């Protein structure tokens, strides 16, 4: 019966005024001239006064971007500004989007694997674009720049200037504005300035002459997957009380602070208020949020991939810590064996709690996945006790660490995660790759007061919420049934609520009771009927 009739694609050419105003053209010119300076530096054009040229370059980029946004939003009445999003080449996977994607991807590949092309010199003065950043680096931390310093500076500039753009775009929405101020602050202070200043303490007597590792305090394990590696632990432990406090803070961050905040506010407190990856996605990536894949297929892939990364990072970290621990309890209380037992107990507790108390909230495949992975981890851990040769796991910890750092740390989070913003949307890394987001999401789904409340029967299924969800959640699928949205992946950016034309969605923290109500609570109909409909 299903007649496959000829499908006439809607010939919607779409011709809104998408051309740029004169001011915007000038702004683009200014911004690109700033980029041009950096590009010339990459090709080893030697600028005589580096401080001046770097300042000019960064100012030109910033002012160009801010001017462009000012021209776009300042004269408009506050409200949702998505006109023409799907007509513009850059935001609808057009030519400009592909070019930008290629440029970004190329930049990441060079940054991670060929920093010498950026002018990195291991002994002596840097050249090229890294050399251009030397003066700024010396002012902040006293040392010449590295490729990471260049990247960190540009990253911070991007969050700040696109943050300003976002503040104008959503100036009617206080939730969005506060959230954006927050990510701008955390990027500037915690990710950029504080670690650089901390580097100045190195060798100081306050650290007992020790040297702290580079530490962005808001960067928590497992996002900061290297935090417990031996060189860092040694550095922490040889840097006096401050070093020790930082190590304790690192451990508390993941085991105490994070669970409490996520219980109270959902994972948004981190993912869209604090995190640097989230910060970039929310500001520079805002123009690409609509590109995320909403299909149920993508959702399946997401759940398998992101949770596999969690397993990977857990194994890798366990192996790395294991590798540098001793075996003699009389020398140090924490040994290879006691550490592994501790990990096994902790994982068993979490697994047992979820499977016993929260099983009804886990889908079948999630349960199978959890059981499978749990068995694998426990088997690998017990390998240590049965093999008797002091090896853990089937792999060397160094190999695991290197593969993780390459596959996840560089390729996934950088090259794909950010490089492909204009193609796959702004949260590819957060959605498919980030182990931190997955752990917070696990808790958000099972033990948090946060939910997006659906407002009775007001949904008209228009699809704005789903379209603009950067995490690819099909928000409408819940809203049109009158169901609250409680999803592990939701980062609480609040855009679904903002773009809803009928006031249907509200992010809020409330009692756990009735938070996930899989019943359809659509209002407006006869009460008796609703009881029947809810019976399923």
């Amino acid at each position, binding site marked *: 019966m299903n*007649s496959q009739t000829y499908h006439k694609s809607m010939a919607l050419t779409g011709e809104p005024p998408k051309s740029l105003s004169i001011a915007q053209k000038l702004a683009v010119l200014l911004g690109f001239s700033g980029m041009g300076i950096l590009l010339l530096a990459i090709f080893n054009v030697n600028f005589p006064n580096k401080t001046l040229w770097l300042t000019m370059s960064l100012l030109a980029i910033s002012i160009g971007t801010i001017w462009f946004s000012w021209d776009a939003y300042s004269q408009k009445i506050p409200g949702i500004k998505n*006109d023409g999003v799907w007509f513009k080449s850059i935001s609808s996977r057009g030519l400009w989007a592909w070019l930008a994607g290629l440029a970004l991807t190329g930049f990441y590949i060079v940054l991670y694997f060929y920093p010498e092309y950026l002018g990195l010199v291991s002994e002596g003065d840097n050249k090229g674009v890294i050399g251009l950043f030397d003066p700024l680096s010396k002012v902040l931390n006293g040392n010449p720049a590295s490729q990471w310093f260049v990247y960190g500076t540009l990253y911070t500039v991007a969050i700040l200037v696109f943050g300003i753009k976002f503040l104008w775009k959503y100036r009617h929405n206080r*939730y969005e504005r506060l959230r954006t101020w927050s990510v701008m602050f955390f990027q500037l202070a915690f990710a950029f300035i504080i670690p650089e200043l901390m580097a100045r303490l190195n060798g100081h007597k306050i650290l007992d002459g020790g040297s702290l590792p580079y530490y962005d305090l808001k960067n928590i394990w497992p996002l900061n997957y290297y935090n417990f590696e031996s060189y860092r632990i040694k550095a922490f432990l040889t840097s006096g009380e401050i070093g020790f406090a930082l190590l304790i803070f690192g451990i508390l961050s993941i085991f105490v602070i994070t669970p409490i905040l996520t219980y109270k506010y959902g994972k948004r407190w981190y993912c869209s208020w604090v995190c640097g990856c989230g910060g970039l996605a929310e500001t520079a990536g805002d123009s690409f949020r609509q590109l995320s894949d909403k299909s149920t297929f993508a959702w399946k892939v997401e759940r398998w991939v992101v949770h596999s990364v969690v397993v990977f990072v857990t194994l890798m970290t366990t192996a790395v810590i294991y590798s540098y621990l001793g075996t003699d309890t009389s020398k140090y209380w924490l040994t290879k064996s006691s550490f592994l037992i501790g990990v096994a107990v902790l994982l068993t507790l979490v697994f047992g709690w979820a499977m016993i108390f929260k099983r009804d909230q886990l889908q079948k495949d999630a349960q199978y996945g959890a059981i499978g992975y749990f068995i694998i981890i426990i088997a690998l851990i017990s390998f240590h006790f049965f093999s008797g040769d002091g090896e853990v796991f089937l792999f060397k910890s160094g190999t695991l660490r290197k593969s993780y750092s390459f596959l996840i740390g560089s390729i996934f989070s950088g090259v794909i995660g950010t490089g492909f913003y204009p193609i796959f949307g702004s949260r590819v890394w957060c959605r498919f790759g980030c182990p931190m987001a997955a752990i917070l999401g696990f808790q958000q789904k099972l033990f948090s007061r946060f939910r997006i*409340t659906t*407002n009775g029967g007001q949904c008209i299924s228009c*699809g704005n919420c789903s*379209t603009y969800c950067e995490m690819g959640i099909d928000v409408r699928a819940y809203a049109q049934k009158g169901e609250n949205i409680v999803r592990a992946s939701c980062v609480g950016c609040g855009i679904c*609520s903002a773009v809803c034309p009928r006031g249907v969605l509200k992010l809020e923290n409330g009692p756990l009771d009735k938070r996930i109500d899989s019943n359809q*609570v659509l209002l407006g*109909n006869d009460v008796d009927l609703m009881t029947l409909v809810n019976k399923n």
Partner: protein
Amino acid sequence: MEHIVIIGNGIAGVTAARHIRKLSDKKITIVSAESEYFFSRTALMYVYMGHMKFEHTQPYENHFWKKNRIDLIKGYVTNVNTKEKFIQLDCAADLPYDKLIIATGSKPNKFGWPGQDLDGVQGLYSKQDLELLEENAPNNNICKRAVIIGGGLIGIELAEMLRTRNIPVTFLVREKSFWNSVLPTGESEMINEHIREHHIDLRLGASLKQINPDENGRVKSVTLIETGEEIECNLVGLTTGVTPNIDFLMDSGIELGRGVKVNRFLETNVDDIYAIGDCAEQHEAIGHRRPIEAVWYTGRMMGETLAQTICGNRMEYKPGHWFNSAKFLDIEYQTYGWVFSEKRKKENEVHFHWKHPKEKLCITIAFDKVSETLLGINTFGIRLRHEIFDRWLSESKSIDYVMEHLRDANFDPEFYKGFESDIVSKYNSDFTKSINLKKKNLKRIFQLN
């Protein structure tokens, strides 16, 4: 296996199909001439505005229908044979049914204006209308000016759409103020202001006399009744409401009024034939509702109700408290219960009105003069919690109670500035009361005790 045929794949027909599938194993076929898959009609405007692509307006992925064994036929129903129980299609063989659900929605009104069928004159209802609009008004070179006739919800949406492409719009509203047959004066005037703020040439008290053609049979201009003024334009949007889309049923023997006549069980005069959504007309209006309700939510509710009946649990259509919402350019509007305009207001209905001194925010609460029970609320620019107002209306709360607990009902995003204390102090001074506003209480809101 019983075969249920549904004509129309809008929200009413699709909701019915989904719920019938939930409750039974019956064979279900949906016929639509408009589109292959269900889409949200209310979202068409966003496609023209570039907020979404057409596929984003489809609430279910294409594999959903097969998975749920709901057959889809794209075709136009030319005739319903009620005796032998089959429908005739323009593009496929006759389709026999055991039960037939008519859910064909509406079509734009045309009131016999001279020139109403010229090229460049159109309504805005269907997917085809949207495609036509892309031809008639792709940009402001081809469409130098558009004139919109009729000051209702679709008219203002069309104006908003055209403005996103910088097309000059003249908006003719017959009434003295925008949508004032429904909205009280204060609210209606605020919307007038907002329309003009968006550089839309709003003409109040202006009606269409005729649409004038050029030599090619395209619209050239319109002439107004009141002033005789002629306005040159390339597009005329007819947005003076909708009427049930039921012409194909003329000789079917199914009782028709303006729509398909149904009883409270959504049954027509012919056995095993039902009508739901925009095209259904109640013999007698339910409460303050109109006999034909062309609203998204009522279409959905009728679909839910009829699915019960079809699956052996004969059920009356009993909509609960009225609610609705809309967005006027940048201003969101919600309503719960009944707030009537001055024209339609009953003797016993008293209004309390508050408007923000600067911003475009206001509310109107209607209550009974004698008992002081809540009758309804309109809000503009402030979101309200549906569940709370539904509960307050069911429990016949007094206006004083509503004022006292107003914070519980707010549904604005977090950190939004609340205006409850301003609202309550205005209420206290208007009605010489001394209500103390209570703090927001999660236990009350979520009814935990």
